[in-house]
């Protein structure tokens, strides 16, 4: 009798308890700074609203497409205003702390879309030329290809605990090898093979010094980049430049339209009429994800990156697994490097990768060392870089240099923990000596 009155039945208990949510300091800071950032962007859009005149038109298909989609014309000022208000509302939601879990993610996506649409509308408003949406999307996929491959290389290596600052150097040597072999053999497969070989060889240099000789990996990466720049530059000056017609005249890849799928309006040409390298990049994302999260080997890779001592204790050879991971990662950076020569223009010039390896590194960090997220980030950076060149042709008052800086700025914001937390694999960059 007495027991029944004292204890409520177990099934009721969860409903009666009112959990108090306690936010950690980090989470609070991240929430507030995210809100503040979105708010600042909202205010900026609000300022841009006053400079928006006329209507913005977006061409969905380019002039040569078989199926012509309509050009969408939207009123400039109202759309920018709506975008600004959306951003400010989301910012208020973040700052007040009302949004939780799923809602927060949704609000973030809404804010992101509002920023892109609002900004593009402002840029295109009142211009004679419509904004070429099809070009933008196709260009995004094209620009992002090496970034995706580089990001895969970075995340695979870093998951195993080897920091790879040398993606740039791997790109450069692979690009050179592809151009040279492509010019001599006139064969794309041979060029691709040479690029992969070069990527793996540079990866082997990284692995040798980082894993065997325990050299600090950041320093090593910088030196390897210097070495790659030096060797390709020297060979280019000494060997290639004097007879560039024979040695720097590689064939470029043709696009391979996938039957039926490539005929879809707008998305068809963007996704299914690309070079083999683009398809390889997409397949690689799945492959790396599968390798890391669905195979025994992947579990070992992640184990040696998080806790090498524990991995060693259960009988995994830390050094061997790290070697394997770095060399496999080299395959992807090799493919990515091939993009710069046989994948696009066919000829090599000194330092032609121009910081793309570092954007890939930024994508790795922004993607929290997860291959799929990193590839998504690479796609986003590709979008931004492509937009910078599109806006240049639209003649907008915003300097394209600022857009090109966006990936780097976003990475700083991310590592400063302003948007959520980024945590590297625990043993990332720590050499393992028994």
């Amino acid at each position, binding site marked *: 009798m007495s027991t029944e009155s004292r204890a409520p039945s177990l099934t009721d208990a969860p409903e009666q308890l009112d959990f108090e949510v306690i936010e950690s300091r980090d989470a609070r800071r991240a929430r507030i700074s995210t809100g503040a950032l979105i708010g600042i962007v909202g205010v900026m859009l609000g300022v841009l609203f006053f400079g928006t005149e006329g209507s913005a038109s977006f061409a969905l298909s380019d002039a040569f497409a078989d199926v012509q989609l309509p050009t969408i014309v939207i009123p400039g000022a109202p759309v920018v205003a709506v975008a600004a208000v959306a951003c400010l509302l989301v910012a208020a939601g973040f700052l007040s702390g009302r949004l939780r879990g799923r809602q927060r993610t949704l609000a973030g996506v809404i804010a992101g879309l509002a920023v892109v649409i609002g900004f593009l509308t402002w840029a295109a408003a009142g211009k004679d030329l419509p904004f070429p949406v099809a070009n933008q999307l196709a260009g995004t996929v094209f620009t992002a290809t090496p970034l995706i491959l580089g990001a895969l290389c970075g995340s695979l290596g870093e998951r195993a605990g080897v920091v790879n600052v040398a993606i740039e150097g791997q790109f450069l040597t692979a690009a050179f090898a592809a151009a040279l072999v492509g010019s001599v053999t006139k064969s794309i497969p041979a060029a691709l093979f040479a690029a992969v070989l070069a990527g793996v060889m540079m990866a082997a240099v990284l692995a040798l*010094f980082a894993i065997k000789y325990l050299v600090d990996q*950041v320093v090593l990466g910088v030196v390897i980049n210097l070495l790659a720049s*030096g060797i390709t530059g020297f060979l*280019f*000056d000494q060997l290639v430049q004097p007879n560039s017609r024979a040695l720097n005249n590689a064939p470029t890849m043709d696009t391979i339209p996938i039957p039926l799928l490539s005929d879809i309006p707008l998305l068809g040409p963007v996704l299914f009429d690309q070079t083999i390298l683009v398809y390889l990049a997409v397949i690689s994302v799945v492959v790396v994800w599968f390798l890391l999260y669905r195979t025994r080997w992947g579990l070992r890779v992640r184990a040696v990156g998080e806790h090498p001592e524990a991995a060693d204790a259960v009988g995994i050879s830390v050094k061997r697994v790290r070697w394997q991971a770095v060399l496999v990662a080299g395959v992807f950076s090799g493919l990515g490097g091939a993009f710069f020569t046989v994948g696009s223009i066919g000829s090599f010039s000194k330092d032609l990768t121009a910081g793309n390896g570092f954007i890939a590194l930024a994508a790795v*960090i922004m993607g929290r060392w997860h291959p799929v997220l990193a590839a998504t980030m690479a796609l986003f950076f590709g979008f931004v870089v492509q937009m910078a060149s599109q806006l240049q042709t639209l003649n907008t008052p915003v300097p394209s*240099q600022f857009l090109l800086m966006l990936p780097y*700025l976003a990475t700083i914001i991310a590592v*400063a923990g302003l948007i959520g937390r980024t945590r590297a694999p625990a043993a990332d960059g720590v050499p393992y000596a028994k």
Partner: protein
Amino acid sequence: MMAETLRTSRVREWARSRWRDWVITLAAFVLALIVGAILMIAADPAVSSNFAYLFTAPGLALGAAWTKVSTAYAALLNGAIGSPEALAATTAAAAPLICAGLAVGLAFRAGLFNIGAQGQAIVASMAAAYVGFAWSLPPVVHLVVAVAAGLIVGGVWGGLVGWLKARTGAHEVIVTIMMNYLAAGLLAWTLTTTAFQRPGRADPISPEVPDSAAFPQLWGQLHLGFFVALAAAVAVGWLLERSTVGFAIRAVGANPSAAGTAGMNVGTTTIVTMTIAGALAGLAGVQAALGPSVNGVPVPLTEGLVGTVGFDAITVALLGRSRPLGIVLAGLLFGGLSAGGLAMQSVAQTPLTLTLVLQALVVLFVAAPQLVATLVPFLKARKTRVSLTGVDA
């Protein structure tokens, strides 16, 4: 008595490790030269084709190879130290390397990787050049103000990294790499604005810096900037070894937790170190913007003005083991390499980019003493890790 023997044995140990450092550096340099020679022979079809007859006519192949390599290296040596003019050119090339090397080395001592000397030098060169060409001030004052502007801007750019690290724990390697590109983007943009672009020019180039803001030339290419760099090295040496701030820097570099327990403010030390490092790298940018070139006037601001000084600086700091004297010597070595490289390019038709390869190889070999010990027979391999960054362990 016991203490005495302990002390002598410790001194002996220290002397032996120093001697080892020197031998390994020398061996690394020789190995780099050998690899460079192989690269040169392989990349020259006229020379490497002779190797088809290596066994029938070894003289032909080896002779051609020897001629190729010896001409190139002789021109390199001659261009670096062969004449007083060459020596002056070496000092001019070494001055920014020393400054930026100090920036990287100082940060290393605090356990920080300053990969951002490049960006710090870029923004500082912008500030110094702007004060140089846009303001008109009396001669000496103009130079001092221009240098100060560069130091302040470089210091702020570097200090920002320290602040982010201290406040949010953002890893300085990633932040500095990204800030390098931000600086490059900023420079590219400012050179298109009316404030920076030379009137009447469509390409990104600034007006020329007048003599009043340039480092005065002393002899040949030797200018005041070199002595400023040496003074900076002395100052950093004093800071590290004789000041409280320097002690805190070294303590934080050796063990941040212990330094924090001992009452030092790790965050503040990080910010201070990165600010000073930024200012030092800024000095390298100032050297590039205000140092007279071959024709006696400073090169106007362009996108490639500072070159790759920030990345070369990392190799300088590593080779110099993050000690001021070491950095000065390493800076002179790489300065000589770049001055000599120009001579090698014009005299022996061997591309300048070879020096980049040599530089990278030297540092790679220095970084892996065990590899050098394996390749060079009489050096005994030791198991202990060599402190590459000069952190007091």
